[in-house]
């Protein structure tokens, strides 16, 4: 899957979860940049992203996330590992 598709889907998930239809995400976006993205919302976002991409992140993966770019990479890695491109 191309990174842009993943970003689109992730944006959709974040908009829905945060209730902010105008939200724009980029790889550099951090929690500080987004209104309402606190530690609790973080869990909601992780849960929603796991559902959307049908994957499960480990505790270490979750704590290592610094920005959207990290999350995109993580999803790409998981997808690559789960369903190798053929």
């Amino acid at each position, binding site marked *: 899957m191309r990174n842009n598709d993943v970003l689109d889907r992730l944006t959709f998930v974040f908009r829905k979860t945060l209730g902010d239809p105008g939200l724009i995400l980029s790889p550099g976006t951090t929690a500080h940049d987004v209104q309402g993205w606190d530690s*609790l919302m973080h869990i909601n976002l992780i849960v929603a992203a796991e559902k959307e991409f049908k994957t499960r992140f480990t505790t270490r993966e979750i704590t290592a996330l610094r920005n959207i770019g990290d999350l995109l990479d993580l999803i790409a890695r998981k997808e690559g590992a789960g369903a190798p491109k053929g």
Partner: protein
Amino acid sequence: MNDSRTLEYSELARAGRNCDLRGLPQIRVAILSDAATQLLVPLLRELFRRAGLAAEIYEAPFAAIELEAFNAASDFYAFRPEVVVLLNATQALRSSFFQHSAPRDFVDETESRMVGVWDAIRSNSNALILQSTYVAPYERLFGNYDPKLATSWTTAVAELNRCLVASSRERNSVLINDVDAIASWVGRRTWFDERFWDLAKSFCAADHLPSIARNITDIVLAARGRVVKCVVLDLDNTLWGGVVGDDGVDGIQISAHGEGESFHRFQSFLLNLKKRGILLCVCSKNEFAAAIKPFEEHPEMVLRKDDVTIFVANWDNKAENIKRIRETLEIGYDSIVFLDDNPFERDTVRSLLPDVIVPELPEDPADYVKALSELNLFETTNVSLEDGARANLYRAEFARRSAASTFSNFGEYLASLNMMIELERFESSRLGRIAQLLQRSNQFNLTTHRYNERQCEDLMLDTKCMPLYASLRDRFGDHGLISVIVARPDMAKRALQITDWLMSCRVLARGVEEYLMNYVVQQAYENDLDLIIGTYIPTAKNAMVKDFFAKFGFEKVEESPDGIAHWQLRVFDYQPRRTYIQLETKQNALAAEAI
């Protein structure tokens, strides 16, 4: 399932963060937990909103249960909660168990601390307390030997749950929030999400938080009288397999073995509901003669004719029939569950009578009982002996009504009923039923104060107060405890103030309220009081008693814009009402029972 009923975590959480609570009556809920509860709060708010309540929620700081409960000056008490949710996580218990030096003492110590919290809350507040059960842990340190070993972690949790539940039985204001039951429904493997416990001390996997929230709202609503009182049943392919009109009595499937067993199990489940006081009615599109036949003739039917309070079989619209059933029973639409295998009928009833509870039934009748159990439709917060007799009472009521038509004058009819009333101050043995009536009576209820059992006990012990209950029986049967009146002398005004007056609607129009008013006025007279003062507080359901005081010659002295009216009557102006009821003293009642 339509969207407004979803229990999907993300959707519910979103709805809960943005819900509009304007104009809804408030309920004050405090949550004390040794886990983080922030994720639960929006879910609770949304589920209460769906039930028509604006939840004001106080979240105690993380793991501060005892700090809050034992400090009478805490913010928690200042919040004045009506409901206290005590939510205890197995993960939190785990760390204290494994640090504990003596596993044998662990259960006792933990239990007495938790019960100490209840009792501290009880001495500082009248709130209803909801204590969670601990979810059984997934560790199996000794394998199958775990439950056998008295000191194992598995045993400790099981024992603790058992002790907590037993202690709750001695405390009416403590109800059990059986989280272990909902966790075992989904399974421990998915219930626990240790990542989010580690990262945020979140109680369980987010997907299952809604079921905890629903358990809490179910209990609270039941405690406030929102309970199912009647199940309306379809027949063909709901209560038995096949179509009785086509297949005949011998052709339908209903037996303890084979294909009919699903229906047999379903009928047994319904019979148990009836035994605990939920009325069963039939609403079927059928010829009456064909529809009633299996109840009379089929040897393997579990439900018999006498188990059904109202039997309707015709070709009318089912919503219309349910409307008639409701009118006869004098209960609210929201206390009726309608069960029908036919999606069309379910849909019709849902759209015409939106307050009736119409669950989806699974395609396979084998799953009926399981599906209904998952929905937890039949929550209750107390059980009294009278519950079980209720169905019989209603049937007697119909006999009574048909008898009414054979008398030329109503007084003659009432006299023929041989009504005996028992009228006493509150007493300990009746507090359960008194509180239940206070919670459940909606229509004939002048002020709708929902005192719980503890508050009733306080009234009973208050010597300045006159808290009365009345029971009624007649030649058709015993109605049990049917009316509650609380009055209080106001010496400054030389008045008797009626703060509460409610009555079960099934004894309407036979002179009970007249009898009771005669008694109340007599009490005022004997206590040298000049006035009787009464209050009416309107609700969505009690319009029938709006003019209750006017009927007895009271004058309205004040009415606020929201309809709260104050009435008063001079004792000397009162004209005692003619009734056909005799007072039954306790001695008489005992003698009657002995006969």
